[in-house]
């Protein structure tokens, strides 16, 4: 008799296991399958910085959290409805956020004395009643997987590595997911080792059969497709979005793309992705260090390429002097900072928004630079495209801020039409009669872009102060003050180009939340909940952090209170208080993790006196 299927609006699932257990792979596959089914999704890959910490230990636990919904959602969920724990360490580090009565599937084979000890359990949690408030399912996954693969005569070690697909099979059954995509993934991923294709396919099937056949699981669930705006969609991570956005900008502006980069977590995937696209004329240069990465990009920009460097906070610190050079030589350049927890090496695989002040001020001298931030994984596409547009139009380096949460997170992306993207016109200086290296455009104050190879425009640029118009070296005091002002004014003028800031909710009221970057989903979800509950709460989300939009002062004046949630100790709030003299309220979290929308809701309640 078929088991009953219960329908859910949305569900949050977390896979947790050892770093070598393949949790990211199966978590990502569940995300892709769910997106293809038509659900909206939000994901949070959460893995350690060590490639393989000692097996079974607490630091070695790797998690993948997925929020699947029949509605339009903006976060990877908070407390999970289901946790799949592959060993005691995974249970210990993740049980805290499993909802009461949540589904807890445990690989009971892994709960031997040694693993319990490694996870610092004094007694076996499966036996002492501590998990009674959950729906606990003990599954001997290791043995069941070995049994399923018995005919293949693989070594135990190889067979055991297939148990992630056994676990995925169980989740697929539990949430009624189709297996076509997973089968395709297994065939592609293990194409060079046919025995592993067979083994993983069998493990996937065995996981499904296990749930179907045993009496342990009485009910399965379904999550219907979400009603997203019509169009063609794909699943997209923030890092892939940046890579694609850069190629799109390169194509639109007609300049070949040059990427100078040095491997660093969590930015390296952009380098990996772009290095595939040589047929789009993309030149990727893996430099000897962060400094060479940005310097090669500055050189490429001088020579007329669309030049980009990708990195994370520690890399930006190393690039600082060169960024000053890009500022004073007024060359277009896009710097992508995929932020991670700091200071120093900090938390390489965890997310943080703590490089905003570094982006704004982290250079010697007065070196103003436009800064823009992406808010969602798919928004990285548009934001990096915008960064390229600003860089070229205004002849300036532009820093784009993303972070680990956006970089590795994924969401359905309504694929844009390339033909409909804004144009990025490029004008190279050609005429020796009217050329001067620092003769500025009257509207934008941008200087001309004259590339080597153009006859008659031979000129010298460099890091010494420039004389206005000619660009010759100048130590004149008044000229220095003038040029300092010009560089600042040029950046300020970008604000005239920006669209009006959208206030979501009433245009005036009690409380305005001001967000930037990856807090978008949590803030939006929290504010929408409160608005549904009839509260006077609105929100804005700032993409352009330097210069800030021209209409902010007016918007701020219409609200009694302003709340600024940030994944740092309060950085945008310094800028806002400084510039607008408003008594904004900070709300901060610095745990290497994104906000939960419930945390923001609680803060809203506190402020509104609930």
């Amino acid at each position, binding site marked *: 008799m078929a088991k009953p299927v219960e329908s859910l609006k949305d569900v949050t699932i977390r896979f947790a296991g050892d770093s070598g257990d393949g949790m990211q792979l199966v978590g990502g596959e569940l995300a892709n399958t769910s997106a293809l089914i038509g659900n909206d999704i939000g994901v949070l890959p959460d893995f350690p910085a060590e490639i393989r910490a000692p097996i079974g230990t607490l630091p070695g636990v790797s998690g993948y959290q997925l929020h699947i919904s029949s509605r339009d959602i903006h976060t990877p969920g908070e407390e999970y409805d289901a946790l799949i724990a592959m060993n005691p360490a995974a249970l210990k580090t993740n049980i805290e956020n499993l909802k009461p009565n949540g589904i807890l599937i445990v690989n009971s084979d892994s709960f031997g004395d040694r693993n319990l000890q490694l996870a610092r359990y004094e007694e076996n949690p499966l036996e002492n009643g501590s998990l009674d408030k959950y729906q606990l399912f003990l599954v001997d996954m290791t043995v069941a997987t070995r049994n399923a693969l018995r005919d293949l005569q693989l070594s135990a070690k190889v067979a055991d590595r297939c148990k992630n697909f056994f676990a995925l099979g169980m989740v697929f059954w539990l949430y009624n997911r189709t297996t076509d995509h997973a089968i395709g993934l297994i065939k592609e991923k293990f194409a060079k080792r046919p025995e592993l294709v067979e083994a993983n396919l069998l493990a996937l099937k065995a996981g499904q059969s296990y749930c179907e056949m045993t009496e342990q699981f009485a009910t399965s669930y379904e999550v219907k497709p979400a009603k997203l705006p019509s169009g063609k969609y794909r699943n997209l991570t923030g890092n892939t979005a940046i890579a694609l956005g850069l190629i799109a900008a390169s194509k639109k502006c007609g300049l070949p793309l040059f990427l100078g980069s040095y491997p660093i977590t969590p930015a390296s995937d952009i380098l990996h992705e772009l290095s595939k696209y*040589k047929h789009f004329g993309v*030149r990727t240069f893996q430099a000897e260090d962060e400094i060479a990465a940005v310097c090669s990009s500055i050189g490429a920009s001088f020579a007329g390429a669309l030049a980009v460097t990708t990195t994370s906070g520690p890399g930006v610190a190393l690039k600082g002097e060169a960024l000053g050079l890009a500022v004073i030589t007024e060359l277009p350049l896009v710097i992508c900072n995929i932020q991670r927890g700091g200071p120093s090496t900090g938390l390489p695989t965890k997310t943080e928004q703590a490089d905003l002040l570094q982006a704004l001020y982290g250079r010697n001298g007065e070196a103003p630079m436009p800064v823009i931030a992406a808010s969602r994984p798919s928004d990285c596409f548009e934001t990096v495209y915008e960064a390229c547009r600003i860089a070229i139009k205004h002849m300036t380096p532009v820093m784009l801020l993303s972070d680990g949460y956006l970089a590795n997170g994924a969401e359905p992306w309504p694929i*844009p039409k390339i033909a409909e993207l804004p144009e990025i016109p490029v004008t190279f200086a050609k005429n020796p009669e009217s050329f001067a290296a620092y003769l500025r455009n009257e509207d934008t104050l941008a200087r001309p872009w004259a590339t080597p*190879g153009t006859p008659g425009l031979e000129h010298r640029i460099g890091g010494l102060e420039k004389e206005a118009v000619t660009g010759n*070296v100048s130590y004149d005091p008044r000229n220095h003050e003038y040029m300092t002002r010009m560089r600042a004014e040029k950046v300020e003028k970008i604000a005239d180009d920006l669209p009006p800031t959208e206030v979501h909710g009433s245009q005036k009221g009690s409380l305005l939340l001001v967000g930037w970057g990856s807090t978008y989903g949590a803030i939006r979800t929290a504010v929408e909940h409160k608005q549904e509950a009839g509260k006077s709460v609105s929100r804005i989300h700032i993409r352009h952090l330097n210069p800030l939009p021209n209409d902010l002062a007016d918007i701020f004046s219409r609200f009694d209170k302003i709340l600024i949630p940030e994944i740092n100790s309060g950085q945008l709030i310094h800028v806002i208080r400084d510039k607008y003299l408003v008594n904004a309220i900070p709300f901060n979290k610095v745990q290497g993790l994104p906000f939960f929308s419930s945390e923001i809701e609680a803060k809203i309640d506190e402020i509104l006196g609930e």
Partner: protein
Amino acid sequence: MSVKEKTAPSNGSSELKLTKKSFESDQEVRWCPGCGDYSILAQTQRTLPNLNIPKEKYVFVSGIGCSSRFPYYMNTYGFHTIHGRAPAIATGVKIANPELSVWVVTGDGDGLSIGGNHLIHAIRRNIDLNIILFNNRIYGLTKGQYSPTSEFGKVTKSSPFGSIDHPFNPISLAIGSGATFVARTMDRDPAHMQQTMKTASEHRGVSFIEVFQNCNIFNDGAWTKYTEKETRDENVVYLQEGKPLVFGKKRDKGVRLDGFKPTVVSLTEGKYSESDLIIHDSSLMDSTYSFILSHMMEDPTLPVPLGVFRSVDKTPYDKALNQQIDDAIETYGKEPDLQALIEAGDTWEVI
């Protein structure tokens, strides 16, 4: 295709009508009177008209230091960058536009200390740059501290008790980094410098030239033994391709190899003749020989070699990169479909 390859060799300078003056910028040269840099600037301006490369295709990139003011005085495209980073910036220029003739001007502090990493990696990649390292064995612009090529024990402002740093040998470093072209010349021998620059420019891949350059303010006479007429012939051996290593005012001495050890022998005593000497061959792919030559500098009984130590052919980085791009375009077509790219992978329609 690089500039060098596609340039026809014959009387280009007359076709392009370039002269030394064409390469002089309108900026006043601000090195100390008597500085060796003046000679290097003049020899560069004399050499470039003879390379048959249009003026707009030259780019001079420098770092920080006295030598690095060089681009301001050249009427070419120029980029005076930041300390030590010229090779990295020049790399970006060359990759973005392989048609350009890109020159890096650096010094012993800029290139070997703060910028050592970029120098060795640019050399290792064999990117088609011409790197000129002005070696005056001192920090001049910061007024006289010991540099990575200052001799052990050197007393300077920052080493009042004598430097306890062991110096780099720039030629050995370049060879050790896998340089495909390595040469040494000096500020006091204009003809040799011009010839060296021309040969370097014609080399496919990275060219590294060390120039003995005198800083008459902070380290006057560092190279006197090798540069001055009275002593030069006894202390310097000019490397000439296919020729024995003969030196001396009367050309009465030679260098022969005793195992791996070069030794000076007399050609007048009857024991040795020219056929016993090292016959110079810069084309050896194995760098052992050029490395031995580079180390002659460390032995005061031996003359210091000037000229081309090593000149071998390996695929330059910029050429290989553009080959990969050409191959990819051949495979996937010249106008790849960007819309198809962003729609690649698993997609679904929401109606």
